C-alpha cells in the first residue's frame, strides 16, 4: 500500500536530478571564487615583504663626535649633504671594486633612496649614534624579485635586467648574512612611486577613504530624506511616479556616464579641483543615491501601517509619527542599503578615470581637496606597468580592496542581524 508507485518514483528521480543540477551550479561558483582568491593571494602576498641589505655606516665620518647628532634638529640633518658619504658607505661592502662601472652596478642593487634611508636612520637614532652603525637599506626591485624567486636566474644575461655581477654581489651578501627579508611597512603608508620597490598603497587607501567619507556625508542624508519624503509624504500622482521611475533608472545607468557628468559639470562648470576625493565623492554619490533611496523605501514600506496609526491615534503629527516611529524601525534596512552602496562606490573605477583620479600621485592626500588616487584606480594603474614589482603590488592592492569590501559587507550583515525587528 505504501510502496512507491511508478509515478512517484519518476517524481523522486526528477527531484534528485534537480538537486544535482543545483549543487553543480554552486560548486562551479565556489571553484571560480576559490581560483580567483588563490591566484590573487599567491601572486600578491609577497608584496607585503621586502628585501633589505645591511651596510655598515661610519657616521663618525660625518661628524667626528657622534654624540653631537643629538643636538641637531631633524631639519638640520635632512639638509646635510650625505650623497657621497652614502655612496662610500655602500662601496665599503666590496672595498676591492675599482672599476667605475662595477661600482655603479653595485649601487644599483639598492633602491635609489639610499641616501635618504641613511639620513632617516640617523634622525631616528640621533640620541645615541655609535661610530659605526648597521643600517638596512631597501634593495632594488630587481634584487627583491630575485629574492622572492620571481626572477628566473637561468635566462641569458642580456635578457635580464639584473646583471651577472650584481647577482654575484647579492649572493655574497646573502652568504654573509647581510640580507634580511622584512615586513614591508612603507607599502601600506607611502604613495605611488616610479620605483616599484618604493611604491605604496597608503595614498590610495587614504584617497579611497576620503572619497567614501564624502560619499557618505553627501548621499546618506539626501538619500534618507528623499526616501522618507517619497514614501511617507508625497501624494501619489504622475509627478511622483515620474520621479520614482527615474530613480530606478538612475540605478541602472552605467557608471562611466556619471564620470562624464562629473567631468562636464562638476569640473568644467563648477570648477572644482580635478583628481580630488571631493569630486570623486560627488560623482560616486550620484551612483550611490539610488541604491540608498531604493533600500530605504523598501524598509520603510516594510514597517507595518499599524505603527503609523498607533502614533497618529494619540495625536502625533504625521512628521512625528514618521520620525519617531517609522524611520527608526526602517534605519537598519537603510543603513544596510547605505553600506552596500558605499561598497559599490569603493570598488568603482570608471567614473574616477574620467575625473582625473587616475593621476600619478606620490603624496598621501591630507584633505579631500588634494589630488589623490583610489584603490581600484591604483590597481588599474599598476596593472599596466611593466616592472615585475608592480605585478605583486597589483595583486596585493586587490587583496586590500577585497578585504575592505568584505569588511563593509560584513558590517551590513551584522547591522541587519542585530537590529532586525521582530513583530
Amino acid at each position, binding site marked *: 500500500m505504501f510502496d512507491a508507485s511508478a509515478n512517484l518514483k519518476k517524481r523522486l528521480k526528477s527531484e534528485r536530478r534537480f538537486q544535482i543540477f543545483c549543487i553543480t551550479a554552486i560548486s562551479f561558483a565556489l571553484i571560480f571564487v576559490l581560483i580567483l582568491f588563490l591566484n590573487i593571494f599567491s601572486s600578491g602576498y609577497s608584496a607585503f615583504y621586502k628585501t633589505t641589505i645591511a651596510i655598515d655606516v661610519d657616521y663618525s665620518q660625518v661628524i667626528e663626535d657622534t654624540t653631537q647628532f643629538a643636538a641637531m634638529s631633524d631639519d638640520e640633518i635632512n639638509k646635510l649633504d650625505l650623497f657621497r658619504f652614502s655612496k662610500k658607505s655602500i662601496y665599503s661592502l666590496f672595498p676591492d671594486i675599482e672599476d667605475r662601472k662595477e661600482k655603479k652596478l653595485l649601487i644599483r642593487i639598492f633602491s635609489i633612496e639610499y641616501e635618504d634611508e641613511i639620513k632617516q636612520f640617523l634622525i631616528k637614532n640621533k640620541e645615541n649614534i655609535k661610530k659605526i652603525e648597521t643600517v638596512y637599506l631597501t634593495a632594488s626591485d630587481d634584487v627583491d624579485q630575485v629574492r622572492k624567486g620571481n626572477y628566473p636566474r637561468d635566462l641569458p644575461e642580456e635578457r635580464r635586467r639584473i646583471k651577472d655581477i650584481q647577482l654575484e654581489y647579492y649572493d655574497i651578501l646573502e652568504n654573509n648574512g647581510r640580507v634580511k627579508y622584512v615586513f614591508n611597512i612603507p607599502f601600506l603608508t607611502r604613495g605611488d612611486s616610479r620605483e616599484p620597490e618604493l611604491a605604496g598603497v597608503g595614498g590610495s587607501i587614504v584617497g579611497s577613504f576620503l572619497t567614501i567619507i564624502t560619499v557618505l556625508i553627501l548621499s546618506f542624508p539626501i538619500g534618507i530624506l528623499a526616501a522618507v519624503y517619497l514614501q511617507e509624504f508625497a*501624494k*501619489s500622482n504622475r509627478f511622483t511616479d515620474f520621479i520614482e521611475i527615474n530613480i530606478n533608472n538612475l540605478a541602472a545607468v552605467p557608471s562611466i556616464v556619471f564620470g562624464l557628468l562629473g567631468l562636464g559639470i562638476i569640473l568644467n562648470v563648477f570648477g572644482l579641483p580635478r583628481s580630488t576625493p571631493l569630486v570623486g565623492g560627488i560623482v560616486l554619490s550620484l551612483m550611490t543615491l539610488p541604491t540608498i533611496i531604493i533600500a530605504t523605501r523598501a524598509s520603510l514600506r516594510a514597517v*507595518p501601517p*499599524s*505603527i*503609523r*496609526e*498607533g*502614533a*497618529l*491615534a*494619540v*495625536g*502625533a*503629527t504625521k512628521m*512625528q509619527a514618521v520620525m*519617531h*516611529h517609522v524611520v527608526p*524601525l526602517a534605519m537598519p534596512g537603510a543603513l544596510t542599503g547605505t553600506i552596500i552602496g558605499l561598497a559599490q562606490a569603493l570598488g568603482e573605477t570608471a567614473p574616477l578615470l574620467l575625473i582625473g583620479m587616475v593621476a600619478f600621485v606620490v603624496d598621501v592626500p591630507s584633505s579631500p581637496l588634494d589630488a589623490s588616487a583610489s584603490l581600484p584606480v591604483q590597481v588599474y594603474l599598476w596593472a599596466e606597468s611593466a616592472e615585475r614589482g608592480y605585478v605583486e603590488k597589483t595583486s596585493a592592492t586587490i587583496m586590500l580592496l577585497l578585504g575592505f569590501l568584505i569588511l563593509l559587507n560584513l558590517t551590513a550583515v551584522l547591522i541587519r542581524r542585530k537590529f532586525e*525587528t*521582530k*513583530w
Partner: protein
Amino acid sequence: MNKVKISAKNIDVFYGDKQALFDVSMDMYEKEVTALIGPSGCGKSTFLRCINRMNDVIDICSVKGNVSIDGHDIYDKSIRVESLRENVGMVFQKPNPFPKSIYENIAYGPRIHGMANSKTDIDEIVANSLQKAALFDEVKDRLHQPGTGLSGGQQQRLCIARAISVNPEIILMDEPCSALDPIATAKIEELMNELKKEFTIIIVTHSMQQAARVSTNTGFFHLGKLIEVDSTDTIFSNPGNQKTQDYITGRFG
C-alpha cells in the same frame, strides 16, 4: 439618559468612486458604551474612523456630512486633527504597541503633547494609565521591557493605556477583542465597564454577545447604511427592522 456627546449627521464616505457609507446619522451618548454591529464590510469601522478623522490618512478617502463632538464640528477647517485625536483616542483591531518599552509606549503621547514637565509627572501618568487599563500589577516590575513581549491581551490593554494616557474624553475601539482568546476578551470587557464611568466609548464588534454584554446603545449597519439604532435591550429583544432581526438571529452575517 446621558447627554449627547457625539452627533453624526448625513455622513457619506467615498473610497475613490466607491461609496462606503450612505447618509448615516447617529447620536452617541456621554459616558456610555455604544456598540456598532453588522456583517463584514458593512462600514462600521469606516464610520468609527470618521469620529477621530483617521480616514484622513487614506489619500483616496473623502467624507461628507457633519460630525460634531460637544457641538463642535470636527471637520471644520479651524480644527487641528492632532488636538482632535488627543481628545478622541483609538484602540485597533490588532494590538499595535510601539516596539519600545512598556513605559515608552505610554509616555509617548503625553510627551508630544507637552502634558508633563518632569520625569516624575510622566512616571505618574504611566502608572495611572496602566492602573486604569488594569495592567499595572502585571507589568509594574518590567516597565522597561519591550511592549511587544507581552501576551496579546496584555498588549491590547497596553494600547488602551496608551490611548488613556493623553486624557481623552472618547475612546474608539475597533474590534479590540477579535485577536484575543476568551479570557483576555473577558478582561477587556470588564475593563470597559470600568472605563465607561470616565470615558465615552464607541466599540465596533463582530460579536453580538459582546455588544449585548457591554453596550447601552447599539447601531446595526448593513451595506454601508445604518439600519437601526436603539438601546441594546431593544435591538436584541425587539428590533424594529427585519434585517436586524435576521442578523441577530444569525440568518446572515
